[in-house]
C-alpha cells in the first residue's frame, strides 16, 4: 500500500528551480534511496516532504491525506526526519533529546503539568520507557545522561534517528545518515536502517555512497537538477546510461 504519494512537487527559489515537478511513491515497508549530484535538490525535496519548505507547486499525500502547513503537522501525521548537518539540541542530554521527540505523541497540558496528576505521571513514565527503548535500539543505552554535544559524530547521527523515531513515524527521511562515518560505522548504519524497516517504518534515504545505497534500498530514485531522472531497482538504475551520464557528464570527442 502506498504510504507517501508525491505528485508534481516543485520548489522554486527566485529563478532557480531546486525541485522540478517530482513524482514519488513510498510504500509501506519500503527503503527508497534518493541519489543525485551535489545541488540536485535532494535536501530541498526532503524539506518539502517534512514541511520545512512550502512547495511552490504540487501535492504531498500521506496515508491518503494531503499534507500542508507547519513542520509539526507533518511530524504528527507520521513523517519524521534527520538532517544532513546534524541538528540536535546540543546542550540537552541524550535522553532529553529523545523525550523532545515524544512531544507530538503526548498530550499533557498546562494544568496537568502544574498539578502533576496521575495522568501526567503515567504519560511521563511511558515517554521515559519509550525513550529508553529507543536508545537501546540505536545502541546509545549507556549515553543517556551525556550532553548531546559531547557525543561522537556517529553517535550524534544515531541520536538524531532515535529522536525522529520517538515521534512514532510511518516514514523516516534520512539525509546522508552515513556522512562522516568509517566503513564499520557505515555497515552498522545500514543494519540500523534495515531494523527500522523491520519495525514497520518505511525509510527514504539520501546518500552519496553508492555501495551503501545499492546494497540497502529496494528502489532508487535519481535526482538531477531538480528533476527525477530515473527510478527503479538498484540493478536497473546502475545499468541506466542516463545515470552514468548525469554523474560523469556526456562523453566528448
Amino acid at each position, binding site marked *: 500500500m502506498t504510504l507517501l504519494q508525491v505528485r508534481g512537487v516543485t520548489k522554486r527559489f527566485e529563478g532557480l528551480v531546486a525541485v522540478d515537478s517530482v513524482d514519488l511513491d513510498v510504500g509501506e515497508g519500503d527503503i527508497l534511496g534518493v541519489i543525485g549530484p551535489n545541488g540536485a535538490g535532494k535536501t530541498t525535496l526532503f524539506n518539502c516532504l517534512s514541511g520545512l519548505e512550502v512547495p511552490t507547486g504540487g501535492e504531498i499525500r500521506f496515508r491518503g491525506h494531503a499534507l500542508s502547513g507547519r*513542520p509539526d503537522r507533518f511530524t504528527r501525521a507520521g513523517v519524521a526526519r534527520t538532517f544532513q548537518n546534524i541538528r540536535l539540541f546540543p546542550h540537552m542530554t541524550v535522553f532529553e533529546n529523545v523525550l523532545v521527540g515524544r512531544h507530538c505523541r503526548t498530550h499533557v497540558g498546562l494544568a496537568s503539568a502544574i498539578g502533576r496528576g496521575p495522568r501526567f505521571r503515567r504519560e511521563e513514565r511511558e515517554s521515559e520507557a519509550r525513550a529508553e527503548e529507543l536508545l537501546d535500539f540505536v545502541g546509545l543505552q549507556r549515553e543517556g545522561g551525556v550532553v548531546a554535544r559531547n557525543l561522537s559524530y556517529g553517535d550524534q547521527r544515531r541520536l538524531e534517528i532515535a529522536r525522529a523515531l520517538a*515521534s512514532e513515524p510511518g516514514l523516516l527521511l534520512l539525509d546522508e545518515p552515513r556522512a562522516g562515518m568509517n566503513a564499520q560505522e557505515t555497515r552498522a548504519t545500514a543494519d540500523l536502517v534495515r531494523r527500522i524497516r523491520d519495525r514497520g517504518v518505511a525509510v527514504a534515504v539520501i546518500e552519496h555512497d553508492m555501495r551503501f545505497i545499492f546494497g540497502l534500498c529496494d528502489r532508487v530514485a535519481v535526482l538531477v537538477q531538480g528533476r527525477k531522472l530515473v527510478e527503479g531497482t538498484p540493478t536497473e538504475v546502475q545499468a541506466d546510461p542516463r545515470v552514468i551520464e548525469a554523474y560523469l557528464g556526456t562523453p566528448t570527442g
Partner: protein
Amino acid sequence: MRLHRPPPVAVAGAVALVVGCLSPWATFAGFPGKMSLGGFPGGARLFCLLLVAGAVLFVVDVGGRRRAALATAIGATAVVVVNLVALVDQGGDIGSVSWGAWLALAGGGALVAAAWRLPSGHPPPEEWRRRPAAIEVAVLATGLLALLGAVVWGLEIEESSRFVSFLVFLTFSAVALHHLGLFSGLGVLFNRYPRIAMLLGAAVAVAFPFTQQGNAYWIRVFASIGVFAVAAIGLNVVVGLAGLLDLGYVAFFGVGAYVGALLANASLTTVHVHLPFLLVVLLGGCVAAVFGLVIGLPTLRLRGDYLAIVTLGFGEIFRITANNWDGLTRGPNGISGVPDLAVGGFDFGASHSLLGVTLPGFANYYFVELVLIAGAIVVFTRLNDSRIGRAWVAIREDEVAAAASGIDTIRLKLLAFAIGAFLAGAAGTVNAHVTTQVSPDSYTFLESILLVAAVVLGGMGTVPGALLGSTALFVLPEKLRSFQDMRLLLFGAALILVMRFRPEGLVPSRRRRRELREEAPEGVPGLAGATGAPPGGPVS
C-alpha cells in the same frame, strides 16, 4: 589530612594583616567604626580580618585551595583599598590614613603574591561524601541561615564605605567558597531534598521581617522586591526557558497594576467597583495574559533581535496609551489612593504584633508576596520539568529541529508569553496596593531593562537566580544612596563584571552553564566542542 608548610611570605603577610586590622586606620576621629582607635577590629577592619582566615588554605590541603586563597587575599586587600579611598575622601589628604591601614595593605599584597605562587593542586570534589540525611539537611539549613544572616547583617550597615567593604567581603568570600566547592555541594543537597529545601527557604523568608525589630524601612523595600521577584520569575519563563527576549515585559506588570488599582475602588479612580482581592489577582493575571497573546500572535514569528525590538515597541505603546487614555487611566495623574487590602476584617495596612515583634503593615504584603512567589516557583519548576518545558528549551536550542521534531513552535512560544504575562499581571495587582498609586511613568523601558538584567544577572532559567537578581537590583541602589547619581553607572559596571567572570549568571541552570562554558565543566575534558557538528561545516 596532609598539612603544608606555609611560605614565609604568606606568614608575614597574614601577621601584618592581623596586626594592621587591630591598629588604627584613620588619623582623625569620626570615621565610621572608630577607625582612629587601635586594639580592636572596628568598622570595615572586621571584614578584612575575617578574610585573613583564608590564610589557613596555605596550610591545609583541600581541593581548589589556590584560587580560594587568592580570592580571600585579593578580597582583604580590596577592603583596605576601599577604605583608603574613603579615608582620603573624608580626611582631605593622604595624611588622614594611619599606619595600620598601610601595614594591612602591605600584608594583603604579600598574601596575594604568596597565593599566586601556590601550586594549582587538585580541584574540589564534584560531590560531597554521602552522610546521614539529618546531617545533610542540617547543612542545608545552616547554608540558608547564613544567607539570612548575611542579608540582615548587610542591611544593618549604614555608612556607604562600610557597606561597600561588606560587599567586597561578601563577594570574595563567596568566590573563595565557590572554589572550595561549597556551592556545588549545597546545590547537590538542594536537588537531593527539593521539598525540604523549599520549606527551609520559605521559613527563612518568613523569618526575615522578625529580624527587623519593628523597623519598617527594609520590610518596605522587600515588599517592593517581592512583586518584582514574581515578575522576574515570569520573565524567566519567557527569556530563560523559551529564549524569547522581551524588552517590553514591564507592560504586563503595568496592566496588572492598573487592573488591581481600578478594581479596588481607589479614591482617585475612574471605575467604582470593588472586587475581592483574590479574584482581582487572578483577573489581573488573566488580562495581562490576554495582552500577552495579542502581542505575541503577530510577533512570535519573528526571531531574536526583531522580536526584542517589536516587544520594546509594544512596551512603549502601553505606556503612551496609559498616558493618554484619560477616561480610564486618568492619564499622567494615574490612579491614586489605592486602599489597603482588607480580607475578612484583617487590615493589611495596620501593624500587627506576633511573637513579641511588631510587624509593620508592609510585612503583611510581604507575606502575600511570598505566597505568590511560592506559586510562581511551583509553576516555573513544574513546567520546566515537563514536556512543555522541554519543548521550550528545544525551541531555544534549535527552532527548526524543534519544529521538525513535532513541536508546534508558535503555540508553545505563545504559551510562554502568556504564562510570563500572567505572573507579571498577578504581581502587578499586588503592587498597586503596595505603592497605593499607579501611573504610566512607573512602567518605562528602563524598568523592562532592569527586569531583564535581574534575570540575566541572577542566572537564566533558575528560580534562585531570579530571586537573587531582583534582590540585588533593589537593595544595592537603596544601600548606595550616596552614589545616587552614579547608580546606573555602578549597576552597569557590576553587570559587565558578572558577564565577564560569570556569563551564566550567579545561579545558573546546568544547561545554561553548558552553553556558556565551552570547556566542558562537567568532567569531560577536551570533548566539548571538539566533537560537535563543526561550526563552519556544510550547512543545508
